């Protein structure tokens, strides 16, 4: 009996997801975005688990070649050219995709988790707790994220891990606000009241009845943030947040190396790393747009 109900709930959830995917893939541009993102994710996974497939060795560090340090233009041996000191850009970008996607995913998942939990609890219990949390998010919104990231990274140390922790601290308030708005409206529905009247504990109501219904806008925000965080990580690395581990494969760092050469005519040293970031961010934004339309009940029909 209980098992049947469990299976039923899983089945209904699954059909919901299937329907959402159907609506999502009906839109050409969002399908294209999904394809782009999938290609990037597959590259990152191959990097992580079987790098020889892409011809890579030593994936956590750029391979240097000091016999020919000046950037070489794109050729058959180096499809994207090379950058100083003799780094093959094609391999470097393939390696960098793993680092960038991995850290942006880490940051966004962490921030979403913290934000959802805080927003859920504060909005569910309301009153003074809600007021305090909202004032705290106000404070975080009152500092430009890039400046706050610089400050946190500056005082806590310059490594990619600390940087992503700093970005997590900066990013959770957005999710707290998104979830709060949802919870405040869901709280008033009669099924919550019914659950409360029948003596279900608050924690169970929160996580079983309220939380699943707040997640749609969280997913939309999540996909947009994956794009933004990649840009922010690259930007921070570009302006001098290069971790102590020099020659870390990271797209912002690759553009940073290339800049001095690009103004002297070696344009490919910044063109390809920038394009790699831009295409990923575009794909992710397309996915976010599509997801927002697919999850919008007004447009679903």
């Amino acid at each position, binding site marked *: 009996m209980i098992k049947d109900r469990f299976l039923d709930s899983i089945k209904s959830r699954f059909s919901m997801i299937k329907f959402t995917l159907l609506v999502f893939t009906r839109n050409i541009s969002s399908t294209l975005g999904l394809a782009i993102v999938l290609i990037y994710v597959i590259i990152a996974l191959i990097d992580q688990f079987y790098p020889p497939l892409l011809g890579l060795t030593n994936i956590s560090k750029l391979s240097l070649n000091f016999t020919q340090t000046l950037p070489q233009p794109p050729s058959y041996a180096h499809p994207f050219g090379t950058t100083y000191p003799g780094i093959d850009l094609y391999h470097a970008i393939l390696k960098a995709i793993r680092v960038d996607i991995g850290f942006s995913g880490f940051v966004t998942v962490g921030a979403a988790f913290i934000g959802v939990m805080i927003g859920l609890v504060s909005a569910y219990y309301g009153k003074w707790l809600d007021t305090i949390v909202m*004032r705290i998010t106000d404070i975080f919104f009152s500092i430009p994220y*890039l*400046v706050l990231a*610089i*400050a946190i990274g*500056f*005082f806590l140390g310059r490594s990619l891990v600390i940087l992503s922790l700093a970005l997590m601290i900066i990013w959770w308030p957005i999710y707290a606000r998104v979830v709060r708005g949802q919870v405040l409206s869901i709280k008033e529905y009669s099924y919550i009241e019914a659950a409360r009247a029948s003596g279900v504990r608050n924690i169970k109501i929160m996580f079983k009845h309220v939380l699943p219904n707040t997640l749609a806008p969280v997913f939309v925000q999540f996909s947009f943030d994956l794009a933004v965080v990649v*840009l922010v990580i690259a930007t921070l690395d570009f302006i001098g947040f290069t971790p102590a581990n020099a020659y870390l494969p990271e797209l912002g760092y690759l553009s940073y190396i290339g800049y001095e050469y690009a103004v002297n*005519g070696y*344009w490919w040293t910044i063109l390809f790393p920038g394009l790699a970031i831009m295409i990923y961010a575009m794909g992710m934004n397309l996915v976010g747009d599509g997801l927002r339309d697919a999850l919008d009940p007004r447009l679903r029909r």
Partner: protein
Amino acid sequence: MRLYSYIIMRILMIVPTLFGLTFIVFILSRAGGPNVVISAYINPHIPYALQKAQLMREFHLNGPLWVQYLYYLSGLLHGDWGYTKTGVYSGPVTGAIAVFLPNTIQLSIAAFVITAIVGIPLGTISGYKKDSFTDQVTRIIAFIGISLPIFWLAQMLSLAFATNTVSPYLNVLPLDGTVNPFLLTNLNWVSSQGLSSPTHVMLIDSIIHGDLPVFFSALSHLVLPATTLAFTTIAPILRYMRASVAEVLNQDFVRIGRSKGLPEKLVIKRYIRRNALLPVMTIMGLVFAGLLAGVVVIEALFDYPGMGYWAVQSLINYNTGGIMGVTLVFGLILVFTNLVVDIIYAFLDPRIRTGE
């Protein structure tokens, strides 16, 4: 009467935000231990232990944290914001702010003006003629605007347009700085005390002294950074304006304006655009925050001597005072921008102040 009480309440609401802001900056600066705080004041020629004891006493680093925070707050109120030592400026933080902040304000205002001039009309057309060719192009521009790394755009634009690059493309705009330094060598407004610059902004100073070549040089130095900066903030304005115009389009007052026989241009200008701008006001604070974040990168890239340039210099030079000063100033700017935006919005939309 209602409006005044709303404004007073809104002003009172920033008090906890200000405390939180200063507290975050304070806690961050203390997180690395007392050595980080006093490192800027150490003289390498005097024994370290001697100086450390004195500096710990002087900066009240021995007391509990909340006492230190109170001392920090009183220092802020008395104009003692610390000391900064970087390659571009050495001296008190307040002095550095006086030098760098005007340039940043100039750059942000220029970018904001470009954003408004380009974003609002394009957004209006885009929402008015949905799915037309202009609309498609506009949407693609907005889309690229949010997906583009701003430093990359800056690099590409300077590669294409800047004169200081070797690349054989369009060499029309200067690459870095605020003004051509060769113009400053034989100026009549340079005295023995250095440059007489009442506002610290070349654009305005040159007008005050009636020096046109310097003025045009300063203006041309502003074009590349301001355009790059504006490109990222145009995107949200475009999107909001488009959605907002599309919403207003079906309202009764638009139909009434048309049935009165008003020319369509007047309907767009008086009825549609004005009402569509109202919701766009709410994201102005957000847009301004985006501008201030972009400023850091843009100024660092174009060697534009503003707050962002100073922040990156402090970052490279391991300078605590600079980082704390920049964070605090940007936070204060944003807090007060949001305050002003909210108050203007309350003036425009009576529903807000009556609490509906």
